[in-house]
């Protein structure tokens, strides 16, 4: 048995903007197969940290390891291909693509997804396409969105767009999913739905790191939680243990 590395290790990660230290030396480990929460007041640097981990923003300094593999210098698309997939705080569906197409776009290893493949014609890539359409449809069915497959994603509700983003990410067979406030702007009934799906994904072994503001959701979902304030990590543990720490409650409330 090879030694089990943590899914994700961030070591002393900094991200500076013109003199502002949005992320100021964060080190953390995300264990595999769990849902890990990242909480903190507005402006704590949570989203910036997520963006740095996903490669959307380069780190000013520090190191990021994905299963012991150094990905600090890899661009965002390369990290996604290696199984580190993020969603966004704001809805980021491909509005003028159908729901099904939103999922198909994300599928890796499609022979038709290159200029050469495209020019070779449908015969060359039809088999791959058929495979990923089947895969995407089973995801849609699982998330209760089959009936919407041919609608433009831009016409979906806030909650449905969240689901599309999560399904789209799953098409990449991620090793770790980074969710940036997946419940924000979502109808309470859909929040329950998303919560349920995330729990199912965890039992299937997916590792999730999520930023979330609603502490009761974090409490229900996350196995462990990291707390950030002013760009620094100020605590970690289970939600129950964090609630007992005076300074963390203060930081969160005072912000």
């Amino acid at each position, binding site marked *: 048995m090879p030694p089990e590395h943590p899914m994700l290790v961030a070591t002393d990660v900094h991200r500076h903007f013109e003199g502002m230290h949005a992320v100021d030396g964060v080190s953390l480990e995300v264990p595999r197969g769990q849902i890990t929460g990242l909480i903190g007041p507005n402006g704590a640097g949570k989203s910036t940290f997520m963006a740095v981990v996903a490669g*959307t923003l380069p780190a000013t300094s520090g190191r990021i390891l994905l299963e012991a593999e150094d990905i600090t210098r890899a661009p*965002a*698309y390369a990290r996604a291909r290696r199984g580190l997939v993020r969603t966004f705080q704001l809805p980021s*569906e491909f509005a003028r693509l*159908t729901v099904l197409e939103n999922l*198909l*776009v994300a599928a890796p290893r499609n022979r038709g997804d290159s200029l050469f493949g*495209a020019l070779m014609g449908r015969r060359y890539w039809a088999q791959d396409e058929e495979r990923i359409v089947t895969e995407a449809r089973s995801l849609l069915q699982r998330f209760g969105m089959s009936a919407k497959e041919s609608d433009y994603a831009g016409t979906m509700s806030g909650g449905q767009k969240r689901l599309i983003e999560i399904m789209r990410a799953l098409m990449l067979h991620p090793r770790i999913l980074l969710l940036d406030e997946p419940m924000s702007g979502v109808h309470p009934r859909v929040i329950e739905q998303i919560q349920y799906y995330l729990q199912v994904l965890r039992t299937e072994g997916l590792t999730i790191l999520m930023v979330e503001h609603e502490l009761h959701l974090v409490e229900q979902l996350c196995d462990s939680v990291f707390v950030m304030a002013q760009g620094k990590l100020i605590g970690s543990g289970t939600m129950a243990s964090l609630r007992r720490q005076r300074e963390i409650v203060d930081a969160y409330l005072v912000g």
Partner: protein
Amino acid sequence: MNTFYATNLLIYAGVDIIALLALNLQFGVSGIVNFSFIVFQAAGAYAAAVLSMPPDSNPDYSFQIYFGGYQLPFPLPWIGGAVAGGLLAIPIGLVALRKLRSDYQAIALLVTSIIANEVINNARPFLNGAAGLALVPKPLQDQVDTQGDYYPYLLIGLTAACVALVWFVSARIVNSPYGRSLRAMRENELAANALGKNPVALKMTIFIVGGIIAGLSGAILVGYLSVWAPSTWQYPETIILFAALIVGGRGNNLGAILGALLVPVGLEEVTRLMVHLNLGPPNLIPALEWVVIGLCILGFLWFRPEGVRPEPRRVFDGGPDVELGEGVHAT
């Protein structure tokens, strides 16, 4: 309608269709606001010209100064024109498309267009400056009589073959998973990047493909006109093509073709006919043409941004039994 008139109309229609299919790949499908599009057409035209003309030391051509003059037989000048458009796309793409945000890309490309025109206009030894190149040989002029009755049909046939080829290539790209990735990048580049798509690679490839096709359109045009000068490829020409794509319908090849027929061809024809009506001062109608193009862009973006023929919704066979409405069946 005489043959000359019909030939003129058909060749221009063919060239505009080819150009618009290329601009559709870049702007309509991929969202690259290529305000320097006409430069690639010009590159193709100049390349085809210097590849087919004799050296400027030739007594018949000594009134011009240009480099090259390789007297290559058809179809090499057309192929060379396409290659030139593609090659030019590499440096321009690398400068404009790598780091800049898309609105700044548009500005950078517009400025590129103006600079390129100024440079060619003023650097005479390179491509004969403002006077441009003249007496560019016509395709197959050594093999067939270009004054003969059948030559116009030959030219039209060659142009039509190119239209068919470009249409074929564009259709394969637009209807493939690759085209889907391009459309996803157009919709949300950040999200596409986060899903494993390399936006710079996607943009560069389609920029080069578009450059090749644009270059071909220029080569065809110069083979027909026999002249090419900086005054024929100033940046407003690109705006006409954008107007055509917005009117016709972005993101689909039929829309692009419709746009070519409605705006550059249709508008030219209407103004040509209007001139015969002797309305007002002689320059009134051509000047109004620009007003009409501006109004076309504004009116369509305001009232029908998807154009006359909108990008079709792609419906896949074998889905759940729901009412589908109109849409293209993708598989």
